[in-house]
């Protein structure tokens, strides 16, 4: 988990994506691939932020509605909508995002710990905030988002 939680003493490569008007980033080492939106099968009795499951070359993977998880207002899917496939502690999941913009490198000096910034995103899902030029990048803690960390997913 080193690549997602500690940004100390090294440059970090991030995949930058959009949720609404905000820019977010996850460590590139955790990203496996980026897919266009595809058929998603709804899973009954699952938490509301789990959009469903997809068929990724024969494996069945859960897909998270990232905006719902972060309590952001929903939006319709567009041509830019993507599923970012990430691997967190042996669990591979897809994250639905409004669009993937770029891969960027941030030095640790430009990353603030999460508690210094107030944001719409509740603190536990953050691992920091990065500054690049005049843009702010919200860095996500995938372990808590996927639910393998402190609060694991419970069926409702």
């Amino acid at each position, binding site marked *: 988990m080193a690549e997602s939680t500690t940004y100390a003493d090294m440059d970090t490569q991030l995949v930058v994506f959009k949720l609404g008007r905000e820019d977010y980033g996850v460590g590139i080492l955790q990203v496996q691939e980026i897919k266009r939106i595809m058929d998603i099968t*709804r899973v*009954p009795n699952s938490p509301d932020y789990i959009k469903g*499951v997809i068929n990724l*070359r*024969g494996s*069945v993977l*859960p897909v998270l509605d990232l905006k719902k998880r972060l309590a952001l207002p929903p939006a319709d899917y567009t041509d830019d909508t993507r599923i970012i496939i990430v691997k967190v502690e042996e669990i591979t999941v897809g994250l639905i995002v409004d669009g993937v913009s770029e891969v960027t490198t941030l030095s640790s000096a430009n990353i603030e710990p999460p508690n210094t910034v107030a944001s719409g995103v509740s603190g536990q899902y953050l691992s920091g905030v990065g500054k690049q030029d005049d843009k702010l990048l919200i860095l996500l803690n995938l372990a808590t988002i996927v639910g393998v960390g402190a609060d694991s*997913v419970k*069926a409702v």
Partner: protein
Amino acid sequence: MELNQYMGMFLEESREHLQTLNSCLLTLENDPRNLSVLDEIFRSAHTIKGMSATMGFTSIAELTHEMENVLDLLRKEQLAASPAIIDTLFRCLDTLEQAVESVAANTEATVDIKPLVAKLTKLAGDKGQEEALPARKDKKAKAAAKAAEPAATAQAAAGTIALNDTDVKVIKEAARQGYAAYEVQVKLRDGCLLKSARAYMIMNALDELGDVIKSVPSAEDLEKENFDYSFTVVALSDAEPEKIEQALLSISEVEAVTVLPLTSPEVVPPAAAAQAAAAVEEAGQPLAAESAAPVADALAAADKRLRGGQSVRVDIDKLDTLLNLVGELVINKTRLEQIGLSHHLIDLTETIEQMDRVTTDLQAVVMKVRMVPVGQVFNRFPRMVRDLSRDLNKEVNLIIQGEETELDRTVIDEIGDPLVHLLRNAIDHGVESPAERTAKGKNPVGEIRLIARHEGNNVIIMVTDDGAGVNPEIVKAKALEKGLLTQAEADKMDTADAVRLLFLPGFSTAQVVTDVSGRGVGMDAVKTKIESLGGMVDVETKVNGGATFKIRLPLTLAIIQALLVKVCEEIYAVPLGSIDSTINITPGDIKTIQNQEVILLRGQIIPIVRLGDFLGVPQAAQESQEELYVVIVHMGEQKAGVIVDTLIGQQEIVIKSLGKLLASIKVLAGATILGDGKVALILDVGSLMH
């Protein structure tokens, strides 16, 4: 660390040797004078010791070392294999097992070996004290003879190796069986790290080609890396010297190998071997006579190894991947079939038919590869039965048949616990105490049979005892008392059904709750587990005539037949094994009992479930349909009718896991991928019953 690559091998081999130790020790317990079993025990213990020392697991090595001391005394008949000793050895095995598993789990080994080591030392000391000196020398000579631990005549590895009388005898004996003796000089590359691992690999390679009877420096010194870059080994083999040379040169970091045939075994032991020779003399005559037998054994074993070398050990993950890929292929084939059909491409359809045959064969082969003999589960039971019958002061003889019967690995992994339960029940409730059995005119030793066999597409596993059997009247009375059924129901019930009440949740006939069984969760848990594996369990019994529990299991779980159904836009798969029938009804056929919707089917009241509502399918169409499709499913004795919008059809599906994140969702048994690439979810029929 380079040692990591040996970790898998270490764990696997340790487990195998522990299993061997367990079963050999059981044999020894029944036949304390069986020296060839002792030899095998010694060999296995020694191998574990060697491996663990090489891997740096000192506590395992230390414990096995102490075990060896005791085993050695047993082997020399200076100590009798008393129950106390056997018990201690069993406890050692348990501890070793824990230690190995903690290594596997990658937790720092914190298994406390001190009490056992103390106990072993005491056992060895009791006997060994007065004869400490001869015993030790004797050990050396003996070990040399048995090739387990070459005589500690550590001598510089230069020139011809020192052979003592015993070695010579072994070599002569081997020659008679067509095995030639070779002196193998091995030189490792200068600066080779992990010398002991290399030495271990060389010894392994030689073991595969024949038998190592001696090494200079000793095996122990090789393990501890107490040597320069070269060592010499005397090996017996029926392979060509060139072949040996090649086999060893293929091991990395081996610089040079010289294989010299030892044509004249009458090599006079040089001075350095005098000590060992003296020890042989001291050990006396029995040793000489004895040495022939174990060697013959060892040679037979080596021979078997040579011939049995036709199999390959494969990581189970690779097999899973292979199965997944074949599953993929099946899915794509279905997709092609659909394309062929919808575009009326006759050529394509014909080709696909051929492809269909190949994929079906391929699938069958992959399934077969994943099959493992049930013996893998059965082989831990003799030990368990022994311990248990002893705790309960009963005498039980366990007979195992058909351990070569093969089952899918997934089933094998799951079947252990239910069988443990059935066996425990058989010992605790089934088999009576020896006194009681004698009074009934039975053999005081009870008999439990564990039988596996094929029956069509199923595997049957039976647990049979010749004990007291199950009394249907007592079962009925108990069930009544617990409120599990009404008097009227009980009166109507026939004997077989009454006995089946055992499987009801919350039922236990044990008068006293014991450690072993009688917590009222037993048979219910067994039944649930077996059914979750797609199997069935039933019981047949006669009062005083014993009981037979019969488990029927499908051969495989990974690919099943399923009925695809549609609710609004969502498609679900229902395993065909749990479907009774499908019927059409009109809305008027649905009645309600206490707000629960039911239908009457051939005089039986069946609760119904509207799948759309049950799964919260968005906008479940409630428009009044003239005709409703109902799938009647069952789980054990319970039935339910599931209302769906459309029946799509029957199809072979490949079961995929939903993964850790969604594992807690009870209504689903997994997922599958349909011909069009979409994911369909598989219903867990059991969850519909509540």
